[in-house]
């Protein structure tokens, strides 16, 4: 029986003005070590769901537990330091070098200097960039793919047990994207961490996820392994999603 890393109990998020539900009574539990991909169109609530986990958003109702602990009772800063967070815009700090960017949280936690240095080198190697070459550069000197690798390294700096990734490869070209996906899978395999990965790309979601969560209008339509979703789509939304993906495949075959 593996540990429950994340649990949602009746979690809702309502827009304060219109009262519409962005996230509508969601219940789910995620085991430690899973790679969950969250798939949905824009406005489906997938990003909102993700950001409630590190308390960038607060749920209007319901509770979220991390390893059995209700996060509403923990200082948001502490919650976030236990969670790695990667966003599509990367958000590297332009006034800091690559090494300083990666060392952001270790420095906040006042790690000793040699330990920070060692960790930075280790992380750069982990994301496949040569420490000697990249350490002292500034973010603006890196390509988009390299920047996102640094974003990943920064999120992994203090070895969080949970990683939240909000469309991290959304702005990256197709070839680099494939490389990064493979590398992310390799990272996940080696690190034994729980990954939550938001995407609107169905191929990406089914390739990466050990389980895929499909969201539509604030509700979870289906949350299962890729194989079972393909075999038994839970509702018409999921089946239409499958159909659209198949149609695209046929289009490519037609060109062949």
């Amino acid at each position: 029986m593996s540990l429950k890393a994340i649990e949602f109990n009746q979690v809702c998020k309502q827009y304060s003005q219109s009262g519409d539900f962005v996230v509508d009574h969601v219940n789910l539990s995620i085991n430690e070590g899973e790679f969950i991909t969250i798939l949905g169109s824009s406005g489906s609530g997938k990003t909102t769901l993700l950001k409630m986990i590190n308390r960038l958003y607060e749920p209007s109702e319901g509770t979220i537990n991390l390893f059995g602990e209700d996060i509403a009772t923990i200082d948001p800063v502490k919650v976030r330091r236990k969670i790695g967070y990667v966003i599509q815009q990367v958000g590297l700090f332009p006034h800091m070098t690559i090494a300083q960017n990666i060392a952001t949280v270790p420095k906040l936690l006042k790690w000793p200097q040699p330990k920070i240095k060692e960790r930075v080198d280790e992380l750069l190697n982990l994301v496949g960039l040569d420490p000697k070459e990249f350490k002292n550069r500034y973010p603006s000197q890196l390509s988009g793919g390299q920047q996102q690798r640094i974003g990943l390294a920064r999120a992994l700096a203090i070895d969080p047990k949970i990683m939240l990734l909000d469309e991290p490869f959304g702005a990256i070209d197709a070839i680099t994207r494939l490389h990064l996906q493979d590398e992310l899978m390799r990272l996940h395999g080696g690190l034994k961490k729980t990954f939550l990965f938001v995407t609107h790309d169905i191929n990406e979601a089914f390739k990466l996820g050990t389980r895929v969560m499909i969201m539509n209008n604030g509700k979870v339509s289906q949350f299962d392994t890729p194989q079972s979703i393909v075999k038994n789509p839970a509702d018409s939304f999921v089946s239409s999603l499958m159909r659209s993906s198949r149609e695209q495949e046929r289009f490519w075959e037609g060109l062949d």
Partner: protein
Amino acid sequence: MWKQLSDYFVHNHDDFINSLGEHIVISFVALVFSALIGIAGGYLCVKHKQYDKWIISIFQVLRIVPSLAIILLLIPIMGTGVEPALIALVLLAIPPILMNTVAGIEGVSSSMLEAAYGVGMSDRQVWWKIKFPLAAPLILTGVKTAAIEVIASATLAAKIGAGGLGGIIFTGLGLNRMDLLLVGGISVAVLSIAAGLSLDLTDRYLFKYKMVRK
């Protein structure tokens, strides 16, 4: 003319250095005060959105009032001397610094802030490690604008007995002596340019990350 100018420096060397010193000191002190007030004011404007329109418009109005008028208006209240001159210069220099501080802080993109909070920075850490450092280049630009304005306007301080290079100019006007006007005017111009250049160099030194290329 050259002879007149060189004679001036031979005979009034000490006077000139004295005036130049006064000019630099009064400008520098005014700039330091206005930077402190301007940056603090800018911070307050961003932090308390409800006041920012008030604070900014008050300083905008003050900026429209000519410095000479402020100096003269302050005479009945503060008399003459260095203090009223300083106040007039500070009031003149605050708006560019204040407004650039506001623009600099508000210009920090929301994704940058999300990343900062996302890695687990507290509000205070976000201010000191992200917002201020990223606003700093724009704040420095404001300081540069202010410095040039202050150095030029400090000339007027001589009108109320605060000394400075303005003294030489006003004497030149009174005696109709072209050499004095030139000495005073050119010195002020050179001082402004030097201040601008040194702040440019500071900018390049402090914000190297803006200059790097792929």
